[in-house]
């Protein structure tokens, strides 16, 4: 036994030493792409990294983000690119996990030499991606909601927030609902950043209108059964029920509120009335629900750029209508590529300056970036869910309010901690 061990070890140690020597110099190699990064900037394809949650609860929206982003890339490439350079979209699955998203972003920057990052669909995930891009000076266009990302602690000269944010959406809902349906409200709030930010926005916009919040009930993120909250809400007898939750949580709480008979006694509103949630939740559950949205294809009646975008999207994807989050993906990619054309380079500073100066109208009316926090100033729509008089099965909302872009509706630069 002992002698066997000795010979095995003896022979192999020699082999091992030889191979160890051979590879000793190799670890230097992986660092090469990183070192040559700067040099690779202005030749070859324009690479945009696109991390989105292709798996997990928002997979449906994420697929639409990819579709819309690919549409923007295809348009750019078909039109000849910039200086003959074509665009390459590098789609990655962030699995709706900030750790995974950070790793994928590192991969995109360190290995794939992506020039720009665009994407994500969650506050936490976008903040994580932003943290990575900010430290490395890489342009990031975020297409997902967050109030936090505009605050001085997280903002960066190379981060652009293309998406709407909770403050904008919830305040639009408050302006629409408070007074019209009553002034007494109960808020059912998903207990995480999205819920808190929306509650704050609703409260602040509602106060001048006489809003009285009877209670704000926090439920854990991902709650499936709301039966333990609903009797209490009924007992409080509000005129408005504000549901500050997202995706499946919204669908489930709306559905169960219907079953508990709350709809007959109060108006239910929500800050983000998603097209995909509406389709997934069905007519019956969503009947009578109002909420805000960054986009809905039905705005095409009044906004020409929406009509153009819808038609292109439908032509590319077999008649399918684009969703709200998808549309933001289109805009995010298109503005990067337009900026590259203007700057005539993929160099970060020049492209960032070009994006900052953009006055664009890609899908929802005019937009531009506010200087202090680089938040896109844009229109917001308030929608009422409809079940009758539908033009087709995708016609699920009436657009009741169009709020034009206005910096005054955002939180002030001072409040966000930016120096003026």
């Amino acid at each position, binding site marked *: 036994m002992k002698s066997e*061990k000795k010979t*095995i*070890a003896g*022979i*192999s*140690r020699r*082999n*091992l030493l030889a191979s*160890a020597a051979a*590879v*000793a110099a*190799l*670890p*230097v*190699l*992986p*660092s090469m792409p*990183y070192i040559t990064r700067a040099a690779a900037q202005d030749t070859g394809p324009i690479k945009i990294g696109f991390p989105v949650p*292709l*798996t997990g609860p928002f*997979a449906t929206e994420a697929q639409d983000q990819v579709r819309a982003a690919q549409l923007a890339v295809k348009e750019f490439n078909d039109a000849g690119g910039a200086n003959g350079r074509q665009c390459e979209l590098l789609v*990655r*699955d962030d*699995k709706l*996990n*900030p*750790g995974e998203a*950070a*790793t994928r972003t*590192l*991969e995109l920057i*360190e*290995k794939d030499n992506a020039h720009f990052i665009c994407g994500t669909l969650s*506050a*936490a995930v976008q*903040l*994580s991606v*932003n*943290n*990575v891009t900010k*430290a*490395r000076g890489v342009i990031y266009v975020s297409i997902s909601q*967050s109030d*936090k990302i505009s605050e001085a*602690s*997280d903002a960066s000269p190379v981060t652009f927030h293309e998406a709407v944010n909770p403050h904008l959406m919830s305040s639009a809902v408050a302006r629409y609902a408070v007074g019209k349906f009553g002034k007494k409200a109960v808020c059912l709030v998903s207990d*995480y*950043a999205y819920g808190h930010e929306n509650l704050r926005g609703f409260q602040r916009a509602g106060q001048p209108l006489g809003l009285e919040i009877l209670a704000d009930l926090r439920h854990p*993120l991902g709650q499936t059964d709301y039966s333990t909250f609903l009797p209490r809400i009924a007992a409080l007898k509000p005129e408005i029920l504000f549901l500050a939750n997202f995706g499946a949580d919204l669908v489930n709480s709306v559905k169960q509120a219907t079953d508990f008979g709350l709809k007959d006694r109060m108006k239910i509103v929500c800050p983000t009335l998603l097209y995909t949630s509406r389709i997934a939740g069905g007519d019956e559950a969503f009947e009578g629900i109002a909420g805000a949205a960054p986009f809905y294809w039905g705005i095409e009646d009044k906004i020409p750029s929406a009509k153009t975008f819808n038609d292109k999207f439908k032509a590319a994807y077999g008649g399918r209508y684009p969703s709200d989050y998808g549309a933001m993906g289109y805009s995010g990619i298109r503005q990067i590529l337009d900026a590259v054309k203007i700057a005539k380079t993929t160099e970060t500073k020049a492209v960032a300056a070009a994006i900052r100066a953009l006055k664009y109208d890609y899908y929802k009316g005019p937009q531009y970036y506010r200087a202090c926090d680089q938040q896109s100033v844009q229109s917001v729509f308030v929608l009422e869910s409809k079940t009758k008089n539908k033009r087709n099965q995708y016609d699920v909302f009436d657009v009741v309010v169009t709020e034009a872009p206005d910096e005054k509706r955002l939180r002030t630069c001072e409040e966000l901690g930016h120096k003026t």
Partner: protein
Amino acid sequence: MSMLASEPVKVAEESVFRRVLLLIARHRMLSVTVLLLVFPLFMPYTSLAINILVLGLYAVGFNLMFGYAGALSFGHAAFLGMGAYGCGIAFVKFGIPWLPSIGIGVLVATALAFVMGYLAIRTRGIYFAMVTLALSQLVYYTVFQARTWTGGDDGLRGVNLAKINLVGFEFNFLNPTVRYYVIGAFVLFALWLLSRILESPFGAVLEGLRENEARARACGYDVSRARLIAFTLSGMFCGLAGALYALHLSIVPIETLHYTMSGLAVMMAILGGMGTFFGPFVGAATILLIEDLVSLWTVHWQLFVGAIFIVFVLFFPKGIWGSLLERLRL
């Protein structure tokens, strides 16, 4: 004819392979060092290699309790997470340099492991798993609510370590290669420490405990104390993994504390081979690599991960590394 000719060659090849593997198993530290040096070469990208290092260490730490002391915990995410938050908060909120910050992360995780171990140690089997799960959920909840310190569900951001000073030289920590070798050095040190622990009399006590608790007790060992020490040490290694994770990703996501992270440690250890020194590392590399590669070409990557688990349980019950070792001994 050709078959006859090829036969001896194959045997020779096999025996070289066998010898190399045996060598790795027997000379742990030498092989780990060599492996760590060349590992990034075989990986699609360096940041993934770092993830494997860090989560591999996490699985190894978990395995000290699971594979060696024989107790299944579903709460180890708490130690990974508190290591990460401890280090991250010290670094971001108190401006403490990175090296002592790592130490603080490890300390926090170790202290937490001691407390959790103290409470949970008298339960056994699946109940031990559930108590640890419940306690780690309390930690998750507390951190989730303590937004001012932890960032809540937005995660702790700003653990940005750009430059580090080592032995008089300045290194760019944003460079993946630098990051890999710095973190690798810590992992190497941790593995060396673990190797020493397992070879010590205490390691023997642990194995005795796993094989036959009643006999260990009869031999006069304080079983509860040994388990508590193992649990605390296990938490310490996981805490180090967490601290390194925070510096690598420059954020601490709340998901680090989620019970799916505890589940990941279990899966990595079992898949790689519980109770073996390298098994959890092999498990971590396998899972992370497959997830990474398969998710590049299909969104249905879970199908593959699931199928691999099933195949390994059915045909390689000792895990990848455990089965390899067993084959060699035949």
